[in-house]
């Protein structure tokens, strides 16, 4: 988990490795909406505390929003500040929107002039940035997603269509139909197939105002499913990660996979 977050972090921000595992997140202003063309605004940040923007903005260059009919729609009023990214989404259609910030790329390190060199970036830039004769070259690739879901009217499922790459969330309990005291069941796919044995961490927001994280741990079963009983209403951050050797970039030996989602749990 830490490895994925670190590699992705350094990948997207190219800032020095730090010892702490920062959390990446999207925070929608609201997840259950109604009325004529409701609008949400979303904060996007990387921080230790949930959900406080006090460290780095989440880069939004690859922001992708899937409308209820499966089509791709754009964000409005997108901006990036010192601590957070922000954008609006107009929910013109009825149903569930999936909001995703994909995090994919390549990390390389090699020896040159007696020093360790590092590079993070897109696959297509690899050839121009990494010397062909690099000594002791180590390459890994990462596939990650930072997501959230919001529904205008009745929650629907077509926007959950799997892309078949990396970790993806499949709802069994719909992510916009969560209530305190109830149990929700969710499923994780890796490359489009249910993934058993994934370790899942669940943390409720508002960490600044309590002494411990009060995280909930779960592990996906043989069908890639796991259950959570929500102790209280609030915004929850859910994270899972893994690694394998199913690389798509031929120079890479290892692939890091990560996924985080923010879900809102309402009171009874």
């Amino acid at each position: 988990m830490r490895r994925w977050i670190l590699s992705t972090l350094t990948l997207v921000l190219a800032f020095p490795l730090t010892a702490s595992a920062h959390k990446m997140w999207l925070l929608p202003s609201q997840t259950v909406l109604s009325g004529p063309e409701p609008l949400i605004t979303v904060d996007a940040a990387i921080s230790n505390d949930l959900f406080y923007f006090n460290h780095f903005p989440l880069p939004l260059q690859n922001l992708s929003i899937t409308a209820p009919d499966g089509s791709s729609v754009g964000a409005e009023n997108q901006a990036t500040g010192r601590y957070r990214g922000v954008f609006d989404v107009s929910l013109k259609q009825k149903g569930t929107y999936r909001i995703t910030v994909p995090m994919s790329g390549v990390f390389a390190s090699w020896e040159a002039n007696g020093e360790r060199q590092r590079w993070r970036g897109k696959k297509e830039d690899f050839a121009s940035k990494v010397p062909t004769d690099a000594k002791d070259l180590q390459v890994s690739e990462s596939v990650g997603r930072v997501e959230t879901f919001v529904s205008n009217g009745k929650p629907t499922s077509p926007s959950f269509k799997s892309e078949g790459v990396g970790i993806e969330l499949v709802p069994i309990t719909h992510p916009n139909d969560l209530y305190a005291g109830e149990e929700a069941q969710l499923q994780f796919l890796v490359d489009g197939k249910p993934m058993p044995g994934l370790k899942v961490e669940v943390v409720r927001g508002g960490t600044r105002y309590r002494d411990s994280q009060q995280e909930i741990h779960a592990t996906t079963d043989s069908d890639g499913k796991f259950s959570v009983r929500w102790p209280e209403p609030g915004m929850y951050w859910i994270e899972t990660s893994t690694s394998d050797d199913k690389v798509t970039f031929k120079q890479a030996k290892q692939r890091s996979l990560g996924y985080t989602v923010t879900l809102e749990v309402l009171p009874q």
Partner: protein
Amino acid sequence: MSLIRTRSTHSLVAICFALFASPLMASSLEVKGEKLELKVEVPRLKVSEYHRPYVAIWVQDQKGNAVVNLAVWYQVKGPSDDFGAKWLPDLRQWWRRSGRELELPIDGVTGPTRPAGVHTLDFGTEQLKKLSAGKYTLAVEAAREVGGREILEIPFVWPGEKAMVYQVEGKKELGKIVLTIKP
């Protein structure tokens, strides 16, 4: 001629009763005359900024599924069509159990918000035809702008064998709710 026909219908009903003398059968035949009267009190509140509450009243089965929507009061008029629908999810449980599935407005169900006071609502065969004999819960949920939200529930048996009166009282957003079932 018409007199004879009426008589024969009566005797047919009598035969049915004789054949199926189970309570269930009897009640489904009696449903015709069943009525449900509801008194809903919107309390007068001493607050500096008062807006009339959104209120949803519905009947749900024992699994919590909404069976019949009886009334939904929300801001119907506004700068644009369906302007007030934006705040309907504040009626959290109603929105979850029924509201989000609906195309509003619904004739005979949705209407504008109401002022403080006791509102008497009568529901007859037309609204209640979806209720087969059994146990239900009447739910009244209220949510007020810059105020709170409250839900009250009254479990009841339908249809009642004799006139039944059920009563609950809210703490803040709802006053006294009186449900009367008249056979």
